[in-house]
């Protein structure tokens, strides 16, 4: 460790959130450090919260039905249609409101799938070690070699383009990185807890260790899942754009695709192009903010940079008269 106890390190000692993941503070400490320490987490949470609320109360917020033509084709924003209409004369604002539902659903559900699969594989692999570990890791490697798009095409062709399939395919694409992360964490925790309790453990030891491993792993898993939500939403727009999405569900990604296929650019209809992409970006950014803050809280960067961007300052001694 470094030679000088800088103020940053001293101040940090008070919170005792160390660099190594084993000193995860109690749950309250974790939430405190994440939120209060980083305003971006609060901003992120608020934004996601607002979008969730919009999704829940969609029928109350939307101004028109999204299944029928309620205005002229590509009408610009007006008091009747706040965000204009799309190439089918459907109100854009209502489309955006309802679109939040599918985007959120896919994002959260897919991330959940990834978390469950990845988390399980990671915990089992890290905990049991040995041939189970090696086998699972080889399987992970295989998944990494397959291009994502191939998996998507194959699943779409064989199982059909339903929303549930898309959710699963996204989850399957992302479980590997979660698995690796959790596995590493479980391994390091296992070493520690095992050594500490080696003497007091009898036959039921494994279950005890399991009870202690999980709380140490959970915060990291949650942070990773939040970040995966962002990735899942991103991937959903990608899948839909290539025409492999569910044709019957309207997500923001679908709206982007529609604007492309409907030649919104040629028709100068910016209101059909800008909002969905903007919304997706904002949602992804918000999730990233929250997830990143969580990860930072778990692995704070203690190393003080040694670049002297600011120099130390000189000051006169109290009550010292210059003898010059």
């Amino acid at each position: 460790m470094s030679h000088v106890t800088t103020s940053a390190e001293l101040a940090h000692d008070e919170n005792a959130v160390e660099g190594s993941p084993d000193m995860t503070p109690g749950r309250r400490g974790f939430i405190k450090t994440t939120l209060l320490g980083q305003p971006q987490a609060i901003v992120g949470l608020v934004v996601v919260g607002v979008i969730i609320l919009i999704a829940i109360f969609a029928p109350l917020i939307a101004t028109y039905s999204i299944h029928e033509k309620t205005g002229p084709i590509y009408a610009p924003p007006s008091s009747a249609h706040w965000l204009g209409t799309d190439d089918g004369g459907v109100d854009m604002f209502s489309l955006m409101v309802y679109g939040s539902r599918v985007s959120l659903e896919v994002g959260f559900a897919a991330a959940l799938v990834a978390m469950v699969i990845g988390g399980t594989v990671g915990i089992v692999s890290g905990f049991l070690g040995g041939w189970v570990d090696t086998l699972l890791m080889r399987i992970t490697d295989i998944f990494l070699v397959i291009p994502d798009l191939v998996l998507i095409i194959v699943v779409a062709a064989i199982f059909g383009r339903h929303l549930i399939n898309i959710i699963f395919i996204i989850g399957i694409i992302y479980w590997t990185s979660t698995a690796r992360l959790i596995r590493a964490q479980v391994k390091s925790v296992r070493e520690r807890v095992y050594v500490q309790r080696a003497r007091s453990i009898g036959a039921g030891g494994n279950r005890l260790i399991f009870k202690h491993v999980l709380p140490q792993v959970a915060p990291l898993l949650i942070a990773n899942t939040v970040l995966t939500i962002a990735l899942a939403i991103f991937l959903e727009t990608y899948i839909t754009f290539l025409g492999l999405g569910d044709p019957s569900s309207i997500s923001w990604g679908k709206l982007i695709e529609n604007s492309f296929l409907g030649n919104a650019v040629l028709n100068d209809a910016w209101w059909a192009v800008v909002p969905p992409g903007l919304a997706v970006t904002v949602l992804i950014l918000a999730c990233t903010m929250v997830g990143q803050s969580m990860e930072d809280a778990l692995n704070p960067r203690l190393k003080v940079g040694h670049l002297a961007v600011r120099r130390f300052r000189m000051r006169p001694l109290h009550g010292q008269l210059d003898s010059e």
Partner: protein
Amino acid sequence: MSTQPVLRTEDLHVWFDLPGNRELHAVRGVSLELRPGERMGLVGESGCGKTTAILALIGLLPGSASVAGRVYLHDEDVLAKGEETISPHRWNDIAMVFQGAMNAFNPVKTIGTQIAEPMELHGTSTGRAARAQVRELLELVGISGERADRYPHEFSGGMRQRAAIALALACQPQVLLADEPTTALDVMVQAQILELLVRLTRDLGLAMILVTHDLPIVAQVCDRAAVMYAGEIVEMGEMATIYHDPRHPYTRMLFSATPDLLGDEDVRSIPGAPPRLDREIAGCPFTPRCDSAFAPCATTHPRRLEVAPGHEALCHLNDHLVAEKPA
């Protein structure tokens, strides 16, 4: 040994900024003198401010630090304008061997390149001349000159420490600050490094401050010692004097806690903990852990007293003796 000090500090203070507009007063009025060829030990527990103090001497404190007091190299006040005045002297006149010198080297560059760097930066020599000098330096510290083109990971811990010393000597400074130069080395290697340092100060007339928490080292190697506690020097004097006639309870407890000076004890054996430095301390900071504390200790800060020529202590037990040591 000439009698003019090569390094002199007067009432050196260092504060660190803390969040919430608070400050950590890490160094609280350190005054010392160092003569050419002299080896002074600076001892104390972790956190007592010894490393911070020597970092202040070479001007390597971070931006969150503020410094007050005077540091004279020969007769120039090198801290007068902070970085501006100290940087021309850094490495040329005063150099440092850092704690954990194992990591002081960049793993992707050769040792030789890194030792030549300050030479080229300060214009002392370049190119082939520099390379030749690097080899000489390595030989001086006991490493074969051919190893200059090797990478740090190819050197053992002890050799890296020697290389770090060679690096410090690159621009022929007069003062060498060594921060825990032997921790993380095994006993045999430790002895070699210490022997090297003694030899260098003798042969090159180097003045050295050796910072450590390891008492046996200080006793072995240093002519004089300064004991630090809570940011202050609580006792300072000749090595033998301090050992046989300590005038501060902390010094006494330190040495008596070490049954065998040739053993491996350090200062952990005094119960209690040092005071927090982010607030002002009333009276003597050692009071809570002191076995000789009496009336004035809790309320009045002791004055720096010269208990004998060249021997000073910061303790009320000496109050009856002498007048205050002139500042």
